[in-house]
């Protein structure tokens, strides 16, 4: 039989398929561990900034004091009207938000839970979600809303046509869209600014009004220099508002969760420990896998193969094991992510960068541990190996 034209490292691995399977299983687990811990942490950042990424604006006006999207900090609408006059500004859209007074009644069991209500002028394309765009006109009727499909199950999973109560008033669900939850928001409701005014009148003033808003979206005419407009707005507007780009607004949110929340710290710690343990397990598996073949390596050495060659084989062995373990691990991690995001409505996804980072870590560790394991052969006199 003609010898297989496979690299020696691969042939060594395939020689004992059982052992190879056990080693791969271990690496899969270590990689899944790293993915899951990193995934939990990223789920927090991604979910908290999801709304921001769907806002259809180039620049954003928020209260000077705003530190967290969820915490209510409104600013006068006059500021947004001032922006409208600036050169380069195509349109401005106000976004209203209510997080504490909005209480949703589960249409099935009657239980009540707070929910996040977002409201906007129906003529403004505030959210770049196609489902929302298509259904905006349905919200013109009084007491109508769109419901976020990814809201938690305990809101009663309303569908088009469901009737229930929001903060003690009857509402009709005209359709659904998909936005998702985060660590403070369990569900979302969209409505027109007219309805918002009716549902959540300002307690502090006698005449209902829409004078204060949560986020002001600024659209620029295509081709305008974003940063120049931002600078100009900062100079013209009083300092009760901040002018932020989308990235800066998202960074503000991430900064809060990363630095000022206990949960952010826990996720970071979990990720650090997960990575350390994942890497140590990779080391352990490679170490025992390579040690199994030490007599064979010693034989090669005795036959006259150079240390460099042996190291090359071990490096390849580590590389192949890492890759063979990594590929199924990505699949398993993806399954886990689907499961968790299905349960919680949080965003859990992988990006090329995140995958590449963990891949790099795994491959590097596997190769390094292979070298450590084979050190004995390299140092030893071949004759001693067979004692």
């Amino acid at each position: 039989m003609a010898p297989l034209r496979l690299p020696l490292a691969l042939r060594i691995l395939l020689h004992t398929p059982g052992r190879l399977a056990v080693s791969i299983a271990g690496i899969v687990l270590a990689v899944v561990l790293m993915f899951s811990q990193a995934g939990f942490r990223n789920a927090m950042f991604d979910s908290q900034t999801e709304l921001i990424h769907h806002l259809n604006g180039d620049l954003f006006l928020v209260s000077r004091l705003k530190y967290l999207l969820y915490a209510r900090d409104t600013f006068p609408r006059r500021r947004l009207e001032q922006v409208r006059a600036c050169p380069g500004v195509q349109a401005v859209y106000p976004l209203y938000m209510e997080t504490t007074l909005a209480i949703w009644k589960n249409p099935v069991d009657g239980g009540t839970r707070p929910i996040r209500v977002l409201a906007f002028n129906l003529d403004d394309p505030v959210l770049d979600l196609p489902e929302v765009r298509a259904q905006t006109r349905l919200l013109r009727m009084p007491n109508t809303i769109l419901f976020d499909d990814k809201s938690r199950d305990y809101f009663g999973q309303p569908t088009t046509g469901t009737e229930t109560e929001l903060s003690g008033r009857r509402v009709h669900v005209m359709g659904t869209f998909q936005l998702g939850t985060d660590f403070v928001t369990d569900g979302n409701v969209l409505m027109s600014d007219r309805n918002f005014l009716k549902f959540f009148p300002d307690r502090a003033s006698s005449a209902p009004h829409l004078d204060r808003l949560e986020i002001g979206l600024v659209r620029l005419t295509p081709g305008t220099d974003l940063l120049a407009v931002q600078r100009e707005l900062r100079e013209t507007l009083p300092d009760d508002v901040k002018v932020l780009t989308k990235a800066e607004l998202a960074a503000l949110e991430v900064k809060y969760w990363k630095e000022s929340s206990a949960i952010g710290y826990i996720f970071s710690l979990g990720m650090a420990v997960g990575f350390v343990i994942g890497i140590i397990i990779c080391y352990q598996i490679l170490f025992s896998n390579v040690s199994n073949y030490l007599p064979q390596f010693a034989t090669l050495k005795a036959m006259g193969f150079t240390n460099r060659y042996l190291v090359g084989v071990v490096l390849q062995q580590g590389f192949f094991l890492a890759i063979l373990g990594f590929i199924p691990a990505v699949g398993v991690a993806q399954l886990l992510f689907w499961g968790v995001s299905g349960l919680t409505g949080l965003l859990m996804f992988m990006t090329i960068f995140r995958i590449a980072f963990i891949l790099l870590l795994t491959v590097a560790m596997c190769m390094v541990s292979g070298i450590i394991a084979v050190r004995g052969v390299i140092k030893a006199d071949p004759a001693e190996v067979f004692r």
Partner: protein
Amino acid sequence: MIPVRVYPRSPSPLYSGERGWGEGGETSAGLLPPHPPTLSPEYRGDGSLGYSLRNDVMATSLAVRNLMHSKARTLVAMGGVCFAVVLLFMQLGFFGTVSLTAMLIYDTLDYDLLLTSPNYVMIGGAGQFSQRRLFQAESHPDVEAVMPLYVGRQVWCNPHSGVRRSVVVLGIRPSDPISHVPELERERPGLARPDTVLVDRLSRPEVGVPAVGERNASGPIHLQTIGHFTIGPGFEAGLIVVGDQTFSRLFGGQPLSAVNLGLVKLRSGADPQQVADQLRQSLPSDVRVLTRPEVAARERHYWLTSTSTGIIFGCGVIVAALFGIVITYQVLSLEVTHRLSEYATLKAVGFSDISLSLVVLQQALIFAVVSYLPGFVFALAIYHVTHSVTKLPIGMTVERSVGVFLLNLLTCCGSGLLALRILRRADPVDLF
């Protein structure tokens, strides 16, 4: 009776083991004691003639020698199991924190029954009900006192840096003996002065716990700190306690007739469950009556199953447990398969399956105990660091330490025996 002597093939591993592989060599030497055991033939139950290790001491020493033979390998393997233990402890600690956090405030309050709105979700989102229900409850003969509790979230301005954070505000009647916390009880009457506040010193650094006498802005008014207490804000940024009049001013003149929670104290000797049932019958359905255990169950249930935090940490525990089991299996089965030919030799010279299982079991036992101890210490360190940074309630519990130990033991022994099965099925001759 003819004694059978088994000689090692090379010098005792006790002398070469320390140098590890490459110098000592991994032969059957590691498996056999330096002083060959004396074996006696015996009749087994099935009528066949066999040999068994006469006493457990020998099996133990063989297990120990197996582990000591290649110290580097054993250390690496134990490291694997140890980290699986650490990971499980860490995730369980985080998960436990969620339910501890849920009960932080309730555990310090002095009450027998709790009245809540039907809209109640958790303490920060308690809903409202009429104060009238409290008075109605007070008329029950077994009720000694009722105390309204107002709960809200308000923006708090750090007096030193000006940073703003949302804190949980508890509003109490300054005359009500509301808690078990001595400091809070001592300072409580002072809250009768308007615009005074007691601040939880475990609040996050961004909140900037003010010294006594300092004033800072909060919501629409300025508050003066008159004392501190220690409860812990949990996942919130901070926790403050104010008098009911201050609470009303803090929330733009909110009427005190709408309360968020009602604490009911019963006369001594009254059965809380019985009184709760009676109150449920007499009070309208716009208020709920809960006993202490019911409050605990509801809060835990809410935090563990309905919040993203609880679900994510729950998933973390599952991942960690699966990870631990598979890694431990892997490590232990490698330990056994690695010496399969040595075990086969023993089997060939007449050792029974049971005595070999005993060796493996003891090896697994040592593995479980030795890898658990550093894992336990490591976990304590992680708990300590987490607590000192986040101020969250996190700590080792007896149940958790015993549970993880047993799981570790079970996995270790199970994996070892599972791996040994290959040997049991195999003909010793085949193994060479």
